[in-house]
């Protein structure tokens, strides 16, 4: 056993959530240690890896997994890390590295709408959250100010204070879509952690159009920014530390975590408070791996809910040619969407959705299509330009309801370190499928308004996944049905907290990162209140005493 390390706070996972919790706690004076299974990455090397990749359409290509901390890879073929138990495939993608999966996100930093958190009460489906939108609002604001979020006020998500930045400048293509859909569908700027001006030492966007897989210039906030901020606040990061067991004491408090270094040497880290922030697949995996004689079903799992209620955002889509040249690919990748279908009485019947327009350059897809069709000679260039100028794609982002049968379990297969691989059990239910069916009328209407031709709907019954891994560690007030309380504290272990998208009890229709960060900041405050809050409370106490 290597030298023992210890800290007030031990965080497992150096993604955007783990790092921002670490940062906040380190700022309060706690000693903080972050253990990250994967290696440190370098932005320049990622950019180079993308440019040299033969698989430009595969955003995981610049992020090859390390042997000791594998993550799922599907191109050119499935590396078999995330086992699929079916019945529907759940090919989740994520990055195990310092900085985590937001290395290649689209920086969509959405709030929920208030009713998302009360769908059981309002619509009789899913579950209610153990906290309200109003309680979350200040934490959303803090998250938005850290990340540097640019957004518009007309997206359906109320706020008490203004966005840190005005919306990112609208690409011409989205300008035309907005104008042509006006009066039928309001097309609004997406809420993004992308700079519309210099912010916090990072530059404004210059339209590299590679937000996924990598922003070359640091104009969108990434997990690595959070990690660097945590380190600046005094947190220490240990990369390549593959945690494989969480250890509890006789009282059920967490005493230590154990990790392997790449050479499989074993290390033990002790602490006072432990925060599990390893994502919606790796976090439940670790809790299940940590089963003991006292907790035979895994830690934090009195309810049996660990790993259950797996959710994401499936999408179907329509691709077509507009009757004018709009040229997707100028500016950032994901600028605009339609938000009016995120909520309504219909939620008792079918999934709500956001409609999202891509601004990803269509050149690669069109090139592949033309090669497939055998378009050679002078017609190739002519067709490439015609199609790349006119091709549009709109997709829905559908809500999936929490279902205990959709879950992450431990596979009987093990990875190179001898750690069981995660296994996904997943299905897309009738509620979500009905939402997809309803949205086809919107797709058709949008195409009609754009003078669309060559309409290509995604294959019937086929859903693309959006990598918004949600719900496997759901929060709730009832320890019999949920894993953590409204502050992310395990119902079963007083000094174990869980942060990340996994704690969200429902998935709603919006990319989940900002909500996970907001909840995590609230968790951090619960663990160790910010000094100004302490001062304010102390002042309050004194006044109370005087009265």
């Amino acid at each position, binding site marked *: 056993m290597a030298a023992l390390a210890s800290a007030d706070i031990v965080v497992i996972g150096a993604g955007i959530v783990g790092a921002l919790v670490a940062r906040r706690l380190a700022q309060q004076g706690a000693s903080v240690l972050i253990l990250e299974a994967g290696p440190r990455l370098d932005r320049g090397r990622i*950019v180079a890896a*993308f*440019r*040299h*990749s*033969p*698989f*430009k359409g595969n955003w995981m290509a610049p992020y090859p997994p390390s042997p000791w901390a594998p993550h799922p890879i599907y191109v*050119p*073929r499935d590396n078999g890390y995330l086992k699929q138990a079916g019945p529907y495939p759940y090919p989740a993608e994520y990055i195990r590295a310092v900085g985590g999966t937001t290395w290649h996100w689209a920086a969509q930093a959405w709030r929920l709408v208030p009713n998302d958190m009360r769908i059981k009460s309002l619509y009789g489906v899913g579950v209610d959250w153990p906290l309200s939108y109003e309680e979350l609002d200040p934490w959303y604001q803090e998250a938005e100010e850290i990340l540097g979020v640019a957004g518009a006020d007309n997206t359906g998500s109320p706020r008490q204070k203004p966005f840190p930045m005005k919306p990112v*400048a*609208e*690409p*011409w293509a989205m*300008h035309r879509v907005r104008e042509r859909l006006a009066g039928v569908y309001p097309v609004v700027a997406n809420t993004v952690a992308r700079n*519309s*001006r210099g912010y916090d030492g990072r530059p*404004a*966007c*210059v*339209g*590299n*159009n*590679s937000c996924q897989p*990598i922003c*070359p*210039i640091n104009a969108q906030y990434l997990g690595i920014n959070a990690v660097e901020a945590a380190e600046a606040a005094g947190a220490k990061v240990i990369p390549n530390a593959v945690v494989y067991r969480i250890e509890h004491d006789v009282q059920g408090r967490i005493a230590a975590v154990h990790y392997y270094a790449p050479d499989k040497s074993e290390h033990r880290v002790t602490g006072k408070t432990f925060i599990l922030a390893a994502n919606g697949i790796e976090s439940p995996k670790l809790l299940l791996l940590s089963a003991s004689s006292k907790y035979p079903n895994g830690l934090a799992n009195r309810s049996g809910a660990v790993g259950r209620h797996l959710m994401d955002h499936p999408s179907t889509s329509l691709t077509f040619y507009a009757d004018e*040249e*709009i*040229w997707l*690919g*100028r*500016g950032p990748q994901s600028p605009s969407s339609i938000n009016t279908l995120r909520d309504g009485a219909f939620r008792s019947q079918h999934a709500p959705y956001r409609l999202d327009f891509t601004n*990803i*350059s269509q*050149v*690669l897809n*069109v*090139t*592949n299509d*033309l*090669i497939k*069709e*055998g*378009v*050679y*000679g*002078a*017609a*190739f*260039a002519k067709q*490439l*330009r015609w199609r*790349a*100028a006119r091709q549009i794609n709109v997709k829905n982002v559908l809500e999936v309801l929490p279902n205990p049968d959709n879950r992450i379990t431990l596979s009987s297969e093990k990875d190179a370190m001898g750690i069981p691989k995660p296994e996904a059990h997943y299905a897309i239910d009738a509620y979500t499928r009905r939402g997809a069916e309803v949205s086809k009328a919107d797709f058709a209407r949008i195409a009609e308004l754009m003078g669309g031709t060559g309409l290509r709907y995604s294959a019937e019954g086929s859903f693309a996944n959006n990598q918004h891994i949600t719900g496997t560690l759901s929060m709730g007030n009832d320890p019999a049905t949920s894993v953590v309380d409204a502050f992310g504290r395990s119902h079963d272990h007083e000094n174990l907290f869980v942060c990340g998208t996994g704690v969200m009890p429902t998935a709603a229709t919006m990319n989940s990162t900002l909500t996970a960060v907001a909840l995590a900041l609230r968790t951090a405050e619960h663990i160790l209140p910010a000094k100004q809050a302490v001062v304010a409370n102390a002042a309050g106490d004194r006044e109370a005493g005087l009265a």
Partner: protein
Amino acid sequence: MAIQEARTETALDDPADPSRRRLLAGLLTAYTASLIPWALAQPAPQADRGAFAALSAILVGRPSLDAAQATRTYDALVTDDAHFPTDVQALLTLINQRHIDPLQLQATLDSEHSPLASLPRRIMSAWVLGVVGSSEGARCVAYESALNAVIVADVLKPPTYAYGSYGSWTAKPV
């Protein structure tokens, strides 16, 4: 080096040079020469590379191709398939003899179950995507200079390259 000279103005503008005309002429007929008139101007000390240049030009429909990229691309394709030079000659001969329109080429090869049917896509992929090979054997031989980037270069930058200063994308593209 034959193909390198394709980039020079002289080579492109002087198709009548008889000393050059002789060298590649054996590879082409009036039909294929009409598709790529510049090719007649090129000396072809290596017939295999000359044939590749000619077939490439027919498939991608471009008047000129970058010589260094042609060398890299050809070498990569030959590495994958030792029969590649022979197949290129055979396909070029087929196009010469039967005056096959590039737009009809794939359908023709497919309908005849030609053993050459996979060749055009391999060459197209190499030039327009910059990708040679497939699956685990795939590798990138060009990105910024892949023809799909070159063809739209007046409007778009290849992803990861800055489009322009903040907000420059709000203007009408063309």
